[in-house]
């Protein structure tokens, strides 16, 4: 190691293959999905068949008679091992197994344990539950005024100070209301040249990670070990410790690679039930959900967004009022954070002097909604970017010109009052326009095939305040190991952390080992979510590596190595210990500064550690006889700061865009009277290889996040922001009709065309 620091070790900006690449192509990569422990039992879950009902009786006799069934567990049994069996990150509203009432179809009511999963499954299906049906409410707007209440009273968790005032509130389905007030909105509307008002809706969708939720719990001798496909092991540890009334150090949460997460695997999902079952059975218990069961576990909020803007003579937006209603389903999960942490950006990437935002998390009798890549942003951007296009059309201004005119630029105050720093809004918008050839003539089609172009972009704040802690160890042979709780679910964090540690320590990233999260070994991390890891954990790893580096320098000085000597690290250890021995450990802890928004006005001088800017531009072709939309080109552009691994970032962008193409065109959890009609891949269609746009690109603009580790920032969600509005705007451009809700099915397009032609299509 040299004493003179190099300006760059060349590890940042290297597009190396993922460090686990070989294990993934050979099938040997470790997933909890594969885990079996000696003596392990399998649990299968009996789920509610009604959307809202009182449990009259659970008949387990037929199930218990099946040979091989070890035990059948209901809520009463859970209470024998967990006194208050309710969990949730924002509200302690979710029972481990339903008690007295069920609040959505698919809610866990009982569990069966057997050594053979097929027997457990057969027995779970043989449990007969008698329900007294209760009136139910499904729509987020209806739930505001409905006399049906999903919960008797609100039970906020202690985790978040700003939810405390909600404790004990009764007779409401509003789990959280967030408000922002800037300037004088009413006055601005009164003085407006024109006012535009629209209502946009989105559908409930599901992450469908290909590795469904899975946990193996092994509780014995006063300690709990939980192997889980979780995105945040530290939170699971804290929440399970709380449920058990145990100190954190008696709960160990381990993960491996995740077969996708996308937000589905944040906070507690199946872990609490697995722990309770293991305690009851005295044996390790595995819960591995099926793809179908995932649909009843977590989802993306359906939403309604009423947006109203005042515009002056010059085409400047002078005021905007946003009312956002997120359909949270029966349990809050992290929904209240979605309503607030995304809600405050609902006015979009525009400089608007007068802003009012009212954002609501609403309980309904649908399966719960929570975090899903973008954390509420795809719903918001869908509305405000379609709205932007409609305003531009109404004013007769070019859609990109209108956006430029109103753009929230560097140094301007955001609606919260926070001054914009390192948010490349202008660069992203310019690049999108350039890449799609905005303003240049193109083939608009003819006859029954019509083409159009659309553009859209959005701005997201990183979730705050959150902490990451890491340690970096240098072994006596000089090899480096990083201990951090960031979970690699495909985003490439293992590789990114190796590159950051390598950059700091001037090593090759390929030589750095990053261990899988294990709360007995890896320090606290708030979670692998909200595109926060590169920034937060990246800093923690950098700080840990810097500390290790400083200790190595001290060791060199102590052992009399003259500065500037290029002595191998192993030799340094040998000089100190006389043999291959010792470890140098550096630790790093990172907590960005943040100021909570004022409760009444939502204002804060410091809303976020970094801004994420992302947009899409699309060229589409419509078959006007059928409404079929073909996406010819889809360009996604992002501000990722300085990318640690550009190729992985680009793959993240196009991957996110493809995923969001699914939400835009295909995906929809369809309900009839609260019954989900399509909880499987036969009827819930996600994009496949033949659904790709003819041209698909992901691109990073030249940018630096000054406060980021080596200029980097998060990008996992950025590609999801604006695919839907870009396509809807392109459809409008092509055929002059406006779709107000997702998904954009061929039938929806065709109906809009017929309606526009004054000949609406009937039902039969």
């Amino acid at each position, binding site marked *: 190691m040299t004493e003179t620091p190099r300006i760059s070790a060349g590890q940042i900006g290297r597009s190396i293959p993922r460090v686990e690449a070989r294990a993934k192509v050979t099938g040997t990569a470790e997933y909890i999905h594969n885990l079996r422990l000696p003596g392990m039992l399998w649990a299968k879950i009996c789920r509610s068949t009604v959307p809202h009902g009182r449990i009259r009786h659970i008949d387990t006799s037929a199930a218990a008679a099946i040979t091989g069934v070890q035990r059948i567990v209901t809520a009463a049994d859970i209470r024998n091992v967990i006194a208050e069996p309710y969990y949730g990150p924002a509200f302690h509203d979710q029972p481990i197994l339903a008690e007295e009432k069920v609040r959505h179809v698919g809610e866990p009511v009982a569990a069966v344990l057997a050594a053979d999963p097929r027997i457990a499954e057969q027995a779970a299906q043989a449990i007969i539950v008698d329900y007294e049906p209760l009136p139910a409410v499904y729509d987020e707007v209806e739930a505001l005024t409905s006399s049906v209440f999903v919960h008797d009273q609100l039970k906020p968790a202690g985790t978040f100070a700003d939810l405390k005032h909600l404790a004990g509130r009764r007779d409401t389905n509003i789990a959280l209301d967030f408000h922002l007030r800037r300037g004088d909105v009413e006055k601005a509307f009164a003085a407006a040249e024109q006012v535009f008002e629209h209502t946009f809706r989105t559908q409930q969708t599901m992450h469908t990670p290909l590795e469904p939720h899975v946990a193996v719990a092994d509780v014995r001798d006063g300690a709990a070990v939980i192997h889980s496909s979780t995105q945040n092991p530290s939170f699971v540890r804290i929440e399970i410790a709380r449920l058990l009334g145990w100190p954190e150090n008696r709960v160990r949460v381990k993960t491996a690679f995740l077969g996708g997460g996308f937000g589905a695997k944040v906070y507690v999902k199946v872990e609490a039930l697995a722990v309770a079952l293991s305690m009851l059975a005295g044996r390790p218990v595995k819960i591995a959900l099926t793809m179908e069961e995932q649909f009843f576990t977590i989802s993306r909020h359906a939403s309604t967004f009423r947006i109203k803007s005042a515009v002056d003579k010059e085409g400047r937006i002078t005021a905007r009022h946003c009312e956002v209603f997120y359909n949270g389903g029966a349990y809050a999960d992290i929904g209240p954070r979605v309503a607030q942490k995304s809600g405050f950006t609902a006015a979009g990437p525009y400089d608007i002097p007068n802003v009012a935002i009212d954002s609501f998390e609403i309980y309904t009798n649908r399966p719960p909604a929570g975090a899903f890549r973008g954390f509420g942003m795809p719903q918001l951007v869908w509305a405000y970017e379609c709205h932007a296009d409609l305003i531009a059309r109404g004013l007769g201004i070019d859609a990109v010109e209108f956006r430029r005119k109103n753009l929230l630029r560097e140094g301007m105050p955001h609606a919260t009052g926070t001054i914009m720093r390192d948010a490349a809004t202008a660069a992203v918008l310019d690049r999108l326009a350039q890449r799609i050839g905005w303003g240049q003539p193109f083939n608009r089609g003819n006859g029954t095939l019509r083409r159009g172009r659309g553009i859209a972009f959005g701005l997201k704040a990183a979730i705050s305040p959150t902490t990451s802690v890491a340690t970096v160890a240098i072994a006596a042979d000089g090899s480096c190991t990083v201990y951090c709780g960031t979970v690699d679910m495909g985003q490439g964090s293992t590789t990114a952390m190796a590159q950051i540690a390598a950059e700091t320590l001037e090593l090759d990233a390929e030589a750095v080992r990053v261990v899988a999260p294990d709360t007995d070994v890896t320090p606290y991390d708030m979670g692998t979510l909200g595109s926060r890891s590169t920034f937060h954990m990246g800093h923690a790893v950098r700080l840990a590596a810097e500390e290790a580096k400083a200790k190595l320098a001290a060791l060199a000085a102590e052992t009399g190595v003259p500065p500037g000597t290029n002595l191998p690290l192993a030799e340094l250890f040998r000089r100190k210990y006389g043999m291959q021995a010792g470890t140098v450990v550096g630790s790093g802890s990172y907590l960005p500064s943040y100021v909570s928004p004022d409760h009444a006005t939502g204002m804060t001088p410091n809303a976020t550690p970094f801004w994420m800017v992302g947009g899409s531009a699309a060229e589409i072709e419509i078959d006007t006889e*059928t409404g079929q939309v073909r996406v010819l080109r889809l360009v996604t552009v992002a501000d990722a700061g300085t990318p640690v691994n550009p190729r992985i970032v680009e793959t993240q962008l196009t991957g996110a865009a493809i995923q969001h193409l699914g939400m835009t065109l*295909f995906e929809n959890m369809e309900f009839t009277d609260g019954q989900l009609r399509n909880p499987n891949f036969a009827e819930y269609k*996600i994009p*496949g290889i033949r659904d790709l746009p003819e041209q698909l690109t992901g691109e990073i603009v030249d940018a630096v996040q000054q406060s980021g580790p080596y200029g980097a920032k998060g990008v996992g969600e950025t590609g999801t922001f604006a695919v839907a509005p870009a396509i809807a705007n392109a459809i409008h451009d092509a055929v002059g009709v406006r779709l107000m809700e997702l998904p954009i099915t061929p*039938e929806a397009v*065709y109906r809009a065309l017929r309606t526009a032609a004054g000949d609406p*299509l*009937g039902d039969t």
Partner: protein
Amino acid sequence: MSPFALEEPASLAEALALLDPDDPGARAIAGGTALMLMMKSGLYRPQRLVSLRRLGPALTGIHTAADGGIEIGAMVRLADIERSGKVRAAAPVIAETLLTHSNVRVRNVATLGGNLAHADPHMDLPPVLIALGATVRVTGPAGERSIAIEDLVTGYLETVLANNELITAVSIPPQTGRRATYAKVTARTADDWPALGLAVSVHAEDGVVRDARIAIGAATETARRLPQAEAALAGRAVTDTTLREAGRAAAAEAPVVADHHGSVAYKRVLIEVHLQRALRRVLDGAAR
């Protein structure tokens, strides 16, 4: 899946003897791709399955008849039909249809007989085989009978077959002078089940349609012919007007059902549009 017994008889007679017309708990299994789905979801819990995979070469051959027709054994896997030169020569529309049917892995396992006996309205082959005028040969305790494909299915997952009758082969008559095509229309992803499957087989001469066979699947509860659309074409000169009238007749007569893929009204639109396009393709010679 719940436990069941599995029999693997070595002859057709043995297989038939293991099936009971009055016992729905015993069923024949061929490739098993569809049956596995039903068993895994708990939709069907058999007591006993009778595997047809050891019944020998009688059910696995593809034979071209002297008249140019073709007979395909019931246990021939869809992938083998897709790749068969004989099938391609006799009725190329079959191979073209199979290319986008389900996926390669399913076609590597699923059999022709199983595909037809399953009677799922979203399958692609039934409308194609109906348009080609194909029949199934069926063997039961009383002997053998022939059934036109359009008469095979009576409802959703229901056929005229008794529980102890087995499809042994599919016969496709010679297609001399005819051209056929299949339109698979999906409303969501490209690999989705069809919202509409539309097969047409036309014999046209000198710009006049001599005979047209039109069959629909997916949009209706069972695959079926559309006789009024056929009549709208028969003996008529090929003009845009003729095709439009056939499209309208088809849209009007089809007993369309609504589902995940679209409303009744929308599927009627699809029928009208895609029938005209399919006819134009065969009449212009783009399909065979």
